[in-house]
Every structure is written in C-alpha cells, then in structure tokens.
C-alpha cells in the first residue's frame, strides 16, 4: 500500500511539475465535453405480483460524464471520468450496503481516468483499460497508476492497480463477496509503426486475502502470472506476420500450501508455486496480405488446458483453432466478397471428450448499378464431440444459414426511395446424444423495408414489416415441436425542428406472436425522441419508450389477462468545449 502511494505521489509530482513549466510558456485550450444523463425505468405487471416478467433495468440510473481534453502547449491531458453513484453489477458482486469511497472508485461501473501526455511520454492515472497483447492482458479495467513511454523505437509500459474491489460477504442481504484483486502489468519492447514490433509482456494478478473481513462465499483467492513475447513484422506490398507465445502460472487457491517439490516450480520473484498452481502455454500466429482490393490471411491459435491469464479472466482454454479468410473486390469494385473458413478443436487435453467445430462464412455483395444491389450471405457452423457412456452417440450440431438481400433504390431530383427485402433460412440439425436420432430446427425470416426520402421535405419516414418462423423439436415426447411465429409492423419518422436546431423522432411498432397452438401475444412499442441544440455547445436529449405486452394463454401457471407495461425515460445534457 505504502509503495503504491509513493508511486502515485511521484507520478503526480512529475506530472504537475512538468505541467506547471509548460503553462508559463504555452497557451491553454480545452476540448472534449461533459454530460449528465438520467434514465428512469418503470414496470407495471398485471395481475399485480405476476412473476412472468421481471424488471430488466435499474429503476433509476444517473451517469456523469466528464471527458475534456486540456492542452497546455505540447502537453495534453485527456480526462475520462464516467461514473454513477449507483451499483448495478450482477456478474461481480455489489456491496451489501453503501459502498465506501474506495469501493466507489474501483466499482467496475465507473471510470476515473486521467492520461497526461507529453511527446512520447504518457502518465496513466485512475481507471485504465490497457491492452498489452492478445494473450497477456487487455480485457479488464484496472484502477491505479502507470506510464506508457515511447522514446523513438523503444516501448516501456508499466501499470499497477486494482481490478476487483474487495467486498465482504453477507448472508442478509446475500452478498457473495470478493477479494480485492491487485494487478500489475509491464511491457518492454521495440516498435516501428507499419514495420515491426517486438515486445515482452508481463501480467500479474493477486487476490489480497486480507482485503475482506468476511470471506467471500465459495470463492477462492487466486493468483496468476503470465509472460508473453510478441513478434510482428510488416513487409512491403501489404504482407504481414504476427505471432505471440505465452506461458502462464496460475494458482487456483492461495490457501493451499506452498509446494517446493511438485512439478510446477515457483517463478520467482513473480509467483510462488502452491499445490494448486498450474503452468501451461499458449501461442498464436497469423500471416497474410492486405491491399485495397485483395486480402488473404491465415491464423492459428493454441491455448493449453491449463493456460489461464487474469488479464483475460473469461478466456476459454484447452483449444486449438485455425482460420483462413479472404476479401476481394472485382468488377470495378462492384463486387465485394469476404469469406472465412476455420476449424476448432476443443478439450484437447481429454481425448475421450474431444470436440471439433467447423465454421465457414461467405458474404457476396454486388452493386449491379445505381439502383440495384444484392447481398448474399452463407454461414455454416458444425460442432461434434465423440460419444461417451452418458451420451453414446456424442453431440453433433450443424447450422446452415443462408440470407438473400436485394435492395432497389430509385432516385430522382426530388426524392429517393429505398426498397429492401431480406430472406433468411436457418437450418439447425442436432443429433440426440441418447437415441442417435437427428432433429431439424428450422427458422425462416423475411423482412421488407421501405424508406422514402424527400429532399425538399423535412420529414423522413421509414416502414418495415417482418415475419419470423421457428420450428424446434422437443426432446420429449418425440416428434413434437415448439413453433414460434412473429409478425412485426414498424413505422418511424424523424424531422428537424426549431429552425434545424433540434430533431424529433417517433416510432410505432406492433408485434403479434404465436407459440404453438396458444392464443397470440400482442406487443406495442412507442418511441419518442428529441434533441435540441440549446446553444452552440450545449445539447439536450430525450428518449421515451413505452412497451406494452399482452400475453395469450401460454403462461403456466395461468393468470387472468396477463400483461405488462414497461416505460423508459432517458434524458441528458451534453456540453462540448469546442
């Protein structure tokens, strides 16, 4: 803690002194903006107490945004303060009562970032989302302090902070709790933009057991250290080569005893081996060529079964995948084609339950003339695992999706009329792992959009209609299906108002849905939005949505005339300094 405070103080002092020196000789300017937004959510369920629809947003949410960029001569100081006094977290635990100031600062909902920079030096303070590389760290927000230095071709980065706030567990109200997770990351390397990059990355995360007085329920304190090496090279004529190799040490339970005789050795001074420590590797490489009319590339990625980096906490390991993709333009750039094909092998570490995936995609767009264009899209996704005692036939899913989208645009001197039709067919075959029978799940989607635009009129309407049909087999009883039919009509308009200082928009949407032989559900959504330029720099915005849903008779248990109203009102002010 002491060490961190000293680091912070030094960084502040360094930044302040340098800023003060520059201020004497250079002009001050400010850009960026600030804003405040408020969102109210309301839900009325009838009959009262019905549990068929639950609130899906916080009742009230206020968010503040303070993101100016102050410039002092060659110094630039961008702020990124985006925060809310509320707690809305779900995946990470909220505190049982009011959050203290430290918990407020480190709440993942909030960002308090400040990045003063001068020429090649940047000081990073507060909340930062830093991506060092694909296999070391880059996914999580960390509150702390660090630097990003780029003198010439050299690269030196370091950041130290907290990615997870410590939260005491509680039974009433039930709070699972969390250990405070301290992270540091570093990068040292060389880079010439569009030429090459070589870097070593280090990322460490450590759960601080003493950060809580009531231990988290069912959560173990963890620790991880990852080291990686990145080599990227860009050649002439658009050719490139990229690669990264990484090694991770990961301790799943810091309460387990230290292990000096096991096969995983400590990696001092970064991590001590416990009996729950594992070590594994990951690597990826890509090679390809990019140009204006033609791209081609191939990628391979291997993640060992025990590869675990706290910089990407949700990364799914134990897989090997490779992909080849391409893009090209032809016929005077009127045809654009992009395609990819790939294969992935999961659960590499266990041959008895190894699973394979196949993914292919092609998108073909043709602009025949000013009026007609056609887009075709095809996706194939296959998944197959070998059989086991529990599921002798294994698991096999194959999805084939085809989409056809012609668009016609008619334009004259007064108006433009856009007609767009889209038809999609999705066939999803599944093998029943217990019986070996194949079932087909088919989806048809058709939608049509019409958008007339009159150049001399201020109102811009749009209309759409969509039909959706899905027929999915049920596991039991056999040969029974779950069918869903949806039909949606939608109309909207936008228009400038107040001498073009503002805009209003409105939309009406009606959906009729039918499940199996139950009576239909009915849904109406009304949207009204407005924005008004109060001054050159200040804008007010409003968006109100009402959603009314009336169920048919499919609910179990049955309710008397079940329905709900959902209202969202969002308003805010945005101010821009320039």
């Amino acid at each position, binding site marked *: 803690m002491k060490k961190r405070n000293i680091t912070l103080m030094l960084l502040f002092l360094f930044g302040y002194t340098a800023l003060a020196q520059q201020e004497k000789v250079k002009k001050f300017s400010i850009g960026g903006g600030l804003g405040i937004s408020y969102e109210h959510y309301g839900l009325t369920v009838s009959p009262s107490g019905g549990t068929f629809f639950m609130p899906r947003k916080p009742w009230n949410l206020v968010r503040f945004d303070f993101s100016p960029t102050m410039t002092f001569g060659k110094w630039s100081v961008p702020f990124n303060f985006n925060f809310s006094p509320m707690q809305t977290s779900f995946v990470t635990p909220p505190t049982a009562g009011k959050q203290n100031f430290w918990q407020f600062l480190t709440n993942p909902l909030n960002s308090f970032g400040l990045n003063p920079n001068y020429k090649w030096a940047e000081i990073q303070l507060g909340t930062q989302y830093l991506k060092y590389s694909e296999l070391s760290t880059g996914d999580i927000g960390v509150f702390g302090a660090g630097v990003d230095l780029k003198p010439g071709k050299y690269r030196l980065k370091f950041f130290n902070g907290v990615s997870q706030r410590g939260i005491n567990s509680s039974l009433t109200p039930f709070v699972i709790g969390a250990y405070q997770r301290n992270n540091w990351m570093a990068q040292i390397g060389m880079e010439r933009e569009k030429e090459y990059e070589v870097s070593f990355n280090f990322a460490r995360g450590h759960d601080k057991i003493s950060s809580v007085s009531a231990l988290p329920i069912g959560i173990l304190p963890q620790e991880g250290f990852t080291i990686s090496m990145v080599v990227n090279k860009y050649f002439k004529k658009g050719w490139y080569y990229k690669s990264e190799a990484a090694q991770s040490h990961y301790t799943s339970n810091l309460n387990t005893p230290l292990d000096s005789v096991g096969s995983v050795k400590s990696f001092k001074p970064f991590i001590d081996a416990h009996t729950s420590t594992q070590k594994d590797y990951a690597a990826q490489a890509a090679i390809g060529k990019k140009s204006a009319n033609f791209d081609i590339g191939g990628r391979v990625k291997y993640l060992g079964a025990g590869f675990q980096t706290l910089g990407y906490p949700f990364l799914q390991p134990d897989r090997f995948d490779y992909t080849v993709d391409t893009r090209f333009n032809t016929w005077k750039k009127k045809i654009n084609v992009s395609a990819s094909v790939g294969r992935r092998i999961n659960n590499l570490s266990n041959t008895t339950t190894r699973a394979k995936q196949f993914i292919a995609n092609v998108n073909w767009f043709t602009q025949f003339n000013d009026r007609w264009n056609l887009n075709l899209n095809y996706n194939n996704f296959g998944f197959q695992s070998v059989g086991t005692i529990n599921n002798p036939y294994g698991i096999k899913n194959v999805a084939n999706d085809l989409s056809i989208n012609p668009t016609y645009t008619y334009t004259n001197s007064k108006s433009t009329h856009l007609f767009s039709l889209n038809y999609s067919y999705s066939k999803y075959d599944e093998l029943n792992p217990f019986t070996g029978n194949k079932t087909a799940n088919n989806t048809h989607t058709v*939608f049509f959009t019409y958008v007339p635009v009159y150049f001399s009129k201020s109102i811009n309407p749009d209309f759409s209609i969509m039909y959706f049909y899905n027929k999915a087999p049920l596991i039991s009883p056999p040969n029974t299906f779950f069918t869903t039919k949806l039909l949606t009509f939608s109309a909207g308009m936008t228009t400038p108002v107040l001498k073009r200082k503002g805009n209003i928009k409105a939309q009406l949407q009606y959906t009729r849905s039918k499940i199996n032989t139950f009576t239909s559900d009915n849904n109406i959504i009304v949207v009204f939005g407005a924005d008004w330029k109060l001054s050159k720099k200040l804008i007010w915005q409003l968006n109100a949505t009402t959603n009314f849903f009336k169920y048919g008779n499919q609910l179990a248990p049955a309710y008397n005339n079940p329905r709900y109203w959902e209202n969202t009102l969002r308003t805010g002010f945005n101010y821009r300094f320039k």
Partner: protein
Amino acid sequence: MKHPILFILTTLLFGTASAQVRIQIVGVNPKPTSRLSDWTINKNIFSVFATDASGLPETRVKFKVEIKDQSGAVIGSTNLATSPIFTIKSGTANIFSAGDVLALPAMQFTGSAKIALAKTGRLPGGNYELCIRAVNSIDFTPVSEIYCINFMVTSYQLPLLMFPANESEVEPVAAKTAIIFRWTPIVPTPTEAISYRLQVFEVMEKQTPLQAFRANQPLLDKEIKGVTQYVWQPQLDFSCCGDDDAKAKKETKQDSIEPDTDLNTWMKQGRAFIWTIQTIDAANNGFNNGVGDGRSEPFIFFVRKKKK
C-alpha cells in the same frame, strides 16, 4: 523359505502391526472434482475413519496413499519422508478429511498424470482406484490393512457460444422482432440435471464490453432447460441503428441535421451487447468446472446495419 523362523516372526510382527490401527473410508464421492487441489477444501470427497486397536493411548502414523489408473498402474503415491504425521487416539473417533490424508505437497505423480496435473491441476478424465494404508511414522512399517475405493473423474467443457457470433452484426429490422441465441451443450453430458442461464447485457456508451458484463444489470436473464437455443424478443428501441443508405444519400444533399456528439457517434454505430451462458448444476449453482462460476467466454454483437 530358508528362514522359516524369520518368516513366522515377520508374519506375527506385521499381523500385530496391521491390527494396531483400523481404517475405513466413508462418505465417498464416486465422482469427485478433477481438480486435486479442491480435494483439500472440499469436504464431500471422502473421509478416513481411524480407530486405535493397539491398546496404547495413541499411535502416531502416516498415511500411504496410492492412486492407480484403470490399467492398475500407480500414477501417484505419497512420499512418506515428507508427508505429515497423524495421531490416532485410543477410545475416540479419529476422522481425517481427504485433504489431510492426501497431503498434496507430499504426493509424487508420474507419467501423463504428472504432466496433466502440472498443466491443469486436474486428473485426466477416467476411472481410478485410491488405496490408503496407515504406516508407522518412524520406520513406515504398515500398521493397518490397505483400504481402497474406486472413483471416476470427468473433465467438462463448458458450452461454446454459437450465434450471434462474436463481434457479428444483427440487422436492426430483424432485431426489433427477434434475436436467436444458440450455444453448444456442455460436453460430456453430465448425469445430473443441468440448465443454461442466458444473460444479455447492453454495452452503454463509453463502456467497454467486459465492463458492461462486469458492471451492468442484464437485460435478459433467462434459465433454459433441455435445449440450446432461445428466441429473444428484445422489445427495445432499435430506431437508432438503421443508418440506411437512403438517409445517407440525403445527408450528402443537405447539411447534417444531427448534432455531432459522442452520443450520436455511438448511436450511429448501433447498440452493442455482450452475452454469455452460465451452466447451472442441480443445486442451482454455477456449474463447478474448477475455474469460474460456470460462465462461458462471452461474445459481443451489434445491432446495426451490416457493412457490405
């Protein structure tokens, strides 16, 4: 036998020694977690019940543990020189947990099990036999019979998300009506009843997807049983996300009427969502796969006009 007297003496000695401590393994979980370090904290793996039959007030012992794979080969055994000493008291029930007896720092593994444990911390999936015997804490001579149990470990792979694919785009007109979510089942199929919890989070402006995942309330939180698909009717305002060609043409003929704000820039980019599947076990907890809370690696998708 050249030395029958020595044989008789040895037999008598070990016969007596074997009778010193009686052990029994109780509360055996036939399908324990594959992560061995969890055995030290998990109380429902097995317990060793030991009684002192030596007549002495107490006997100091070590436990010799052997783990054999389905071919009968020993893949791990206790290094008695470093394993802990336990005191078996006379006239009382002496109960030791799996973690105590296994004493992981003193376990020595060999072959592929050693590699797998170093890399993953887990025993490879398969059937195993675990045998325990109490030995004298000084000279390691056996003081109990061998007691063995069988168990099976399974390595699971959590569901992989399929559709909407990662960083894919969903047409706003289609999204107004329905968005289909698909994922692969957990592999292999567990014997216990499991369900899938589909969660969709909206990424608000100036948020990163993972920040939204960690900090926001989910827009959709639905438990699904027996199938690996869900048709979501979002009932949300996607009028922001059209950005259609015709209106773009108008903007080229007129001055842009929209104020140039970060918010509008975001809205033009459409609305972003992050989704995942959490596998739920029979006790309604996140499926314990050794790491995490049963949540699969999340995917991001955008509701906006597709780029052509």
